[in-house]
């Protein structure tokens, strides 16, 4: 990156670090932080959408839809989410290939599961056999987004459902008394107001979503954890920048990144908490009352 970086072994300390931290692999490491932010930026709205659909299903009076919503929310909530993060991408990948297989090769006579192999015909491979690397990356990333959206959609569905129930019933009855249909009352009365009630739950889920992003590593994506391990590991003098085992410092850097990310949300929470404690007959409220002039 810098002009003096041609032979790093001769450099004084600060220049050595300047060169080391801007070499090609480190730039990939920094790009991986971008991947995390992109994942958050895509997953959050998708999960919110999934959650809204789930909450509508939970509210629905049509029983198959209601059962679907109940099943979705309860299964995802009762099982360690890590199981879902690893299960969904494989299961979905095999499911897509199976469907493609049925469409593309209807006259295939061998079973798809032979022993421990999952075999579909060549045309049914997703992504295609000769796809370039970036297509495979995008595909793996999309699978991760689906897994995250499925899990967090269930959490959001539960929170939004609770929030919809929390909107005062009398207002909905009033809306119906004015001649609005159920859908109109939902759109005009419930939907605008429920966010106030949903906000604490949603900001909690947002924090959990932030903290779940390093699991990308388990899905085989070259994310920040992958690069921290690669770059931090001991480098012998065969490398341009030899150094001892520095993984601890790289992971400390990742911890700081996540702490910074959650810090902002934490601040907002604390303010909210103070606001809610004001005037309450609790130990915290009492302390506040005594402190006031």
């Amino acid at each position, binding site marked *: 990156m810098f002009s003096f970086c041609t032979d790093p072994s001769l450099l004084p300390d600060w220049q050595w670090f300047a060169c080391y931290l801007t070499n090609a692999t480190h730039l990939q490491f920094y790009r991986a932080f971008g991947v995390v932010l992109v994942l958050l930026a895509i997953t959050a709205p998708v999960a919110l959408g999934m959650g809204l659909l789930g909450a509508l299903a939970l509210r629905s009076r049509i029983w198959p839809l209601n059962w679907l919503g109940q099943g979705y929310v309860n299964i995802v909530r009762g*099982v360690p989410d890590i199981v879902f993060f690893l299960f969904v991408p494989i299961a979905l990948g095999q499911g897509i290939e199976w469907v493609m297989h049925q469409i593309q090769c209807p006259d295939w006579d061998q079973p798809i599961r032979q022993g421990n192999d999952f075999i579909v015909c060549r045309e049914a491979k997703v992504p295609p056999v000769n796809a370039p690397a970036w297509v495979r990356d995008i595909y793996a990333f999309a699978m991760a987004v689906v897994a995250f959206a499925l899990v967090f959609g269930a959490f959001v569905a539960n929170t939004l459902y609770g929030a919809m129930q929390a909107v005062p019933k009398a207002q909905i009855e009033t809306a119906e008394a004015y001649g609005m249909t159920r859908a109109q009352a939902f759109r005009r009365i419930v939907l605008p107001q429920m966010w106030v009630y949903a906000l604490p739950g949603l900001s909690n889920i947002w924090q959990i979503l932030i903290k779940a992003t390093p699991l990308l590593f388990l899905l085989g994506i070259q994310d920040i954890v992958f690069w921290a391990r690669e770059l931090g590991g001991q480098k012998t003098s065969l490398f341009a920048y030899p150094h001892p085992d520095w993984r601890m410092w790289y992971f400390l850097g990742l911890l700081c990144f996540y702490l910074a990310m959650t810090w902002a949300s934490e601040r907002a929470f604390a303010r909210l908490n103070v606001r809610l404690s004001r005037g309450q007959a609790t130990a915290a409220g009492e302390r506040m009352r005594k402190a006031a002039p």
Partner: protein
Amino acid sequence: MRSCVESFELYILRALGRDYGANLLPRGLDITLCDQIFLIGSGLIWTVYFAGLAMLIGFGLAVGLAVARFSENRLISRPAAAFIFFFRGSPLFIQFFFFYSAFVLLPRSGIDIPLGFVTLTVNTSALTTAQVGGLIVLVLNTTAYSAELFHGALRSIPKGDLEAADAYGLAGFTKFRRVVFPSMLRLAWPSYTNEAIFLTHSTTLVFLSAFPARQQSGEAFYYARYFVDQTFNPFVAYPMVAGYFIVLTLVIIALFGLVNRSLNRHLPKERRARYRFGPQYLR
């Protein structure tokens, strides 16, 4: 093909190590359904070990930390808040990586701590094993999460209770032991139940991160992942481990429910704190 009884004998204690069962794990086409049931089941030994010990040790630390956090002295409450923020604000997954790579850097031979009359040698090589190092990370993590819950409970102890304690002339540790601690525990218990559940769920991360599974002895999810890698079929092992975890969750809810009943036994029914399976999910 093995019979189910043979699988049972080979694998039900395999998670403890090679000496307690088959030398190697079943591989490839040799894997039977019973192997998966018993091997994943044997992994629950470590799941219970991690979750149980971390809860036991973490509980005491968390009560102390919560009291420190609630202290009006900023020199005490600030560090406690920083500790809680550090462990709650960052992913447990990264914490495992961080502590493992820190433990690896410690000298192999142990650290000598001179105490004047005797020199204490701390055995550091154990810290790089999941059973000790991983447990330490889990303890620190659950301490922070539980302390936050207990701190919240301390804040919401009814003012009347504290005034009544003052009126009776209780002060200092007596007041804490007889009034503050029981109320705090009662108020925090429903959320603490959730903490227990999600701590149990998060034990799955121990062997997924940096800590090595020596002699292929890991916890339930480690084996589930092993089977999926071997058979390339996620539809057997993952639902199975999920089932085990649902059973564990129900056991925890039942056990903690008993404690909750006894904590609330002096209260009329409508004022009792009730458990709700709640949002705390992944760490």
